[in-house]
C-alpha cells in the first residue's frame, strides 16, 4: 500500500488516518505486532518524530498499546477496531452523500442508484 500525502494538512494527522486504514484493512491484524517508529518512518519517508506523534495519538485513542520491552501491538479488542471502521465508514459516507448532493441527487435517488449498481454487478 502506498503512502499518500496532501500538502495542506499536517503530516501527522495524515499518518494517523493512513495507519488506521491499514489496521482496518487488516494489514496489521488485531493483537499483532506493530512495526517500530523507525521502520514506519523509513517506509513512509517521513520524520521519525512526526511518526512518533501519530503513533502516540493512536495509542491514546486505544488502537495501539505498547508493552515496555516487547514493543507496540494492535489492540486485541475487535470492537474497538470495528468502532474505528464504522467511524471511517461514516466519514466516507458523509463525503459520498455530500458529493451526490452537489450533483443534484436526493437521498432516495442515491440509494436507488446504489441498488442498481449492486444488481448489475452480480
Amino acid at each position, binding site marked *: 500500500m502506498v503512502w499518500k*500525502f496532501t*500538502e*495542506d*494538512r*499536517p*503530516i*501527522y*494527522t495524515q499518518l*494517523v*488516518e493512513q495507519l488506521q486504514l491499514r489496521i482496518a484493512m487488516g494489514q496489521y491484524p488485531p493483537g499483532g505486532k506493530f512495526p517500530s517508529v*523507525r521502520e514506519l*518512518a*523509513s517506509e*513512509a*519517508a*517521513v*520524520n*521519525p*518524530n*512526526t511518526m*512518533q*506523534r*501519530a503513533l*502516540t*495519538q493512536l495509542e*491514546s485513542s486505544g488502537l495501539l498499546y505498547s508493552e515496555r520491552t516487547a514493543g507496540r501491538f494492535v489492540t486485541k479488542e475487535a470492537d474497538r477496531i470495528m468502532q474505528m471502521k464504522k*467511524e*471511517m465508514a*461514516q*466519514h466516507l459516507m458523509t463525503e459520498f452523500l455530500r458529493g451526490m448532493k452537489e450533483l443534484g441527487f436526493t437521498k432516495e435517488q442515491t440509494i436507488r442508484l446504489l441498488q442498481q449498481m449492486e444488481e448489475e454487478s452480480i
Partner: protein
Amino acid sequence: MNEQLEQTAPIPQVQGEHAPILVCEHLSKFYPQCLALNDLSLSLQPGRIVGLLGPNGSGKTTLIKLINGLLTPTSGQITISGMKPGPQTKAIVSYLPDRNSLPEWMTTEELLHFFADFYADFDIGKAREMLQHLHITEKMRLKTMSKGTKEKVQLILTMSRAAKLYLLDEPIGGVDPAARDYILETIISNYSKDACVIISTHLIADIEKILDEVLFLNSGVLVMQSSVDDIREKEGKSVDALFREVFRC
C-alpha cells in the same frame, strides 16, 4: 471524525529536556560589500531534523560556514554543544558541502581509512555496507568516478559518522530521483535522538516530510522558526507553498 483527529496531538516530550546542540546569540557577519547575517539568534535541540530555507544570498551558506568554523563571526556568539567553533566542535559536527571536496587521488578505501583516522565517531562498517549497497567498489579512485557517484561517496562518509550535528548543504540538488530517495532514506534511518540534522536547501517540496522544523532566512535575518506541522495547521498549506508565497519574486 476529522475534528477529533485535527485536535493537536501532544508532541513527544523527550527532546525538550536536553541541552541545545546549537545556540546562536545575536550572531552577525559583515563583509565589506554586504551584511550576510544580521543579529541572528536561535537554538536547536537534539533529535530534530531541521530545514534551513531561504533564497540565494539569504545567509544560509554563511551560517553553515560559521557553524563549521570556516568563518568567524563579526559579532555575537555561536556555540555547538556549549563550545565555540574549533577542533573540538569539528570532531562532533559532520559536514556535507554542496560541492565535491574529497581528494581526487584517493581510492574509496583510502578515504575510509582517512575518515576513520581523523574522526573517532566514524563507523567504518556502516560506510562499507552502504558502499556495497550502492555497488561502489573500494578500489576505485575518485578521479575515475562519475559526479553522481562521488556525491554518494561523500554522503556515505558524512552519514557514517555518529556526530552530534549534521550539516547537509544542498544534499539533493542535482541528483536523480532514485538517488534522492536514497539520500532521504539514509537521513531518516540515520536519525538519532542525540543528534540534530540541519539540511540547507531550496528544494523544499522533496524534503518537507522528513523535517521537524524549518528556519526561514531572508537577507541575513531569521524570518521564521516553526515546526512543519504547525505551519500546515496554521496556514493550511505546505511549507513549500508558504515559501513560494513569502519569497515571491
